């Protein structure tokens, strides 16, 4: 979300600069109330729980935090989570771009239905998705494809639940894109691949990165859809979300908070990197 906001803001603020500057000095009562409400809301929903998480994570001091994060089971679960999340969201960014492209640039029968289906993974409770995938790709798979207890199965589940992110991020950009530059490049003899690489992709990059970033962030916290298909075997196929769930179940709250915080910090670092990349691309476009 942060990435999209940045992108929009950077274009918007150019247009609205004089007015924005004005309002910085004269805060109307309405704006003051709105700001206060926004800050209160954000504190209640995000900041306070986050602060509590940090406090809990360091209940056992810095060494307690470090020991909990570097426990073998924790490292293994976090590593597997990042691997599958990265793979799943990377594959989805390619698949999502292709899907969005087809939905925007093509006209075919059933397009509206396909477009509506994209959001299905969002609407479906993830546990239902998990059970469905388990029946489809489990040991009794009707298509004879058993992926339970493998990283492939986990990645597949992640791709299923995060598919809408890239599609929905790229779609509006594609819809408003005028293809005049591409046409000009084509008349100058550039190959379709070169046109895509040098003109289309850079223009789509911020949206694509935003979608991929969101998909990645969503997948590292994914629980319901992956907990069945992973077989939940500690040190082998146990994911971070499930590991943290087990820890809270057995009242190891400090360790659970520590592992969550580690997961969050790495995720935020990656999202930051995406944000920087996105900024870089959107500047390059001007």
């Amino acid at each position: 979300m942060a990435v999209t906001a940045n992108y929009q803001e950077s274009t918007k603020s150019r247009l609205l600069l004089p007015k924005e500057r004005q309002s910085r000095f004269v805060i109307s009562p309405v704006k003051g109330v709105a700001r206060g409400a926004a800050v209160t809301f954000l504190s209640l929903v995000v900041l306070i729980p986050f602060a509590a998480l940090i406090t809990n994570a360091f209940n056992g001091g810095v060494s307690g935090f470090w020991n909990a994060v570097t426990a073998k089971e924790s490292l293994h679960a976090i590593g597997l989570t990042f691997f599958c999340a990265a793979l799943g969201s990377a594959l989805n960014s390619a698949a999502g771009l292709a899907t969005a492209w087809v939905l925007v640039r093509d006209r075919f029968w059933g397009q509206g239905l396909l477009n509506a289906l994209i959001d299905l993974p969002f609407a479906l409770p993830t546990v239902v998705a998990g059970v469905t995938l388990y029946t489809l790709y489990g040991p009794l798979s009707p298509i004879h494809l058993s992926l339970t207890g493998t990283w492939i199965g986990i990645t597949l589940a992640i791709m299923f639940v995060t598919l809408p992110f890239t599609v929905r991020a790229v779609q509006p950009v594609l819809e408003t894109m005028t293809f005049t530059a591409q046409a000009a490049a084509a008349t100058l003899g550039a190959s379709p691949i070169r046109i895509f690489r040098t003109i289309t992709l850079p223009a789509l990059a911020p949206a694509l990165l935003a979608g991929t970033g969101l998909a990645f962030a969503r997948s590292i916290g994914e629980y319901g859809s992956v907990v069945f298909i992973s077989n939940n075997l500690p040190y082998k196929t146990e994911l971070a979300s499930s590991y943290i769930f087990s820890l809270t179940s057995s009242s190891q709250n400090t360790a659970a908070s520590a592992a969550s915080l580690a997961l969050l910090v790495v995720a935020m670092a990656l999202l930051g990197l995406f944000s920087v990349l996105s900024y870089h691309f959107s500047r390059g476009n001007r």
Partner: protein
Amino acid sequence: MRFFSSLIRGSIALGIAGALVLSPALLGEAGATTSTVNVVGYSVAGLGIRALEAAFQGTPAGANVTFNNTFGASDTMTTNVANGQAADFVNLSYSPNLTTLVGAGKVPANWASQELTVGGVNVNLTGNKQQTVYNTPGILTDSAVVFVVRQGNPLKIKNWADLVKPGVQIVTPNPTSSGSARWNLLAAYTAQIALKKTSHQAIDYLKKLLSNVVAQPTSGSLSMSAFVAGTGNVLLAYEDDAKAAIAAGNNIQFITPPQTMLIENPAALTTTGLANPAAVAFYKYAFSKAGQVILAGLGYRPVLKSIATITASSFTNFTKKNSLLRVTDINKNGWTSANLQFFSPTVTFPAGNTTYPRFGIVTYLEQFVGSNG
């Protein structure tokens, strides 16, 4: 235009949220005389508790009682209740969960004696009170650890030794969240001791058993789901869950190993439950002859001696020596010590030994098998 559409969207969202917040209050008002009992139970208890509730609602005492049920992995449920989830009546997998709730101030320390004071069941076998089979106070149902296999038992699994053979794929829940998992692993260990193995040999056995485990779902009932969906070829489960799954028409059967463990699932009224007459009446019903007959019919072993005698033919009997082991067979302090010895998250070794932990045996073995298997 955009402002208006977002305003409309905002009001719709607020409306829905408001309706969601208000609906329980409105519904509550509609039937002013009903009372609600919050029930929290371990995953496999669901079947029995729901049947008890339905039958209880058919009695005068339960006519206007509604239930709020939550079932899940026993340790998870315990943590939720300790952290404030509303609960009047709890039915958990094993007694350390109740010790946790006593520590959290949710359940009175003398919860086990509610069986006598509320339920009118006397474990000490005196007077005209109902008498129990195994003399453990505060237990609502008994069960045993069994092996669930595919129909026809293709791998010819008969005893514990068969489970550690190559090619056997075991499903058992994750002991960090599930009480059922802990019963299973303790049964495996205690069976080895009953077979005259040393404690070190029994730990070696557990190691082999764990390296044959292919899935550790978070709860007992999710393990059953995974097994029924085709994962593995042996499931370690509660006898009652196995019976229920067979009754549901699944293509499986179960084998009672020659040595198994007596599972005792405690139930108790919380402090809020003791103050809730409907919860007290439900507790009384659960421990009554009528309640125990319902549970026995669903495959849970009844704790009342009179009902156990009547229903004996529908359960495997354990008359042979060492066929039914108890937690106190490994440790006379029972669960209190066994829990630390096997499931402590911190692994501690005795001096001069790095293979056989004193505390956290299973924690250590999971790590060992996970890193080397």
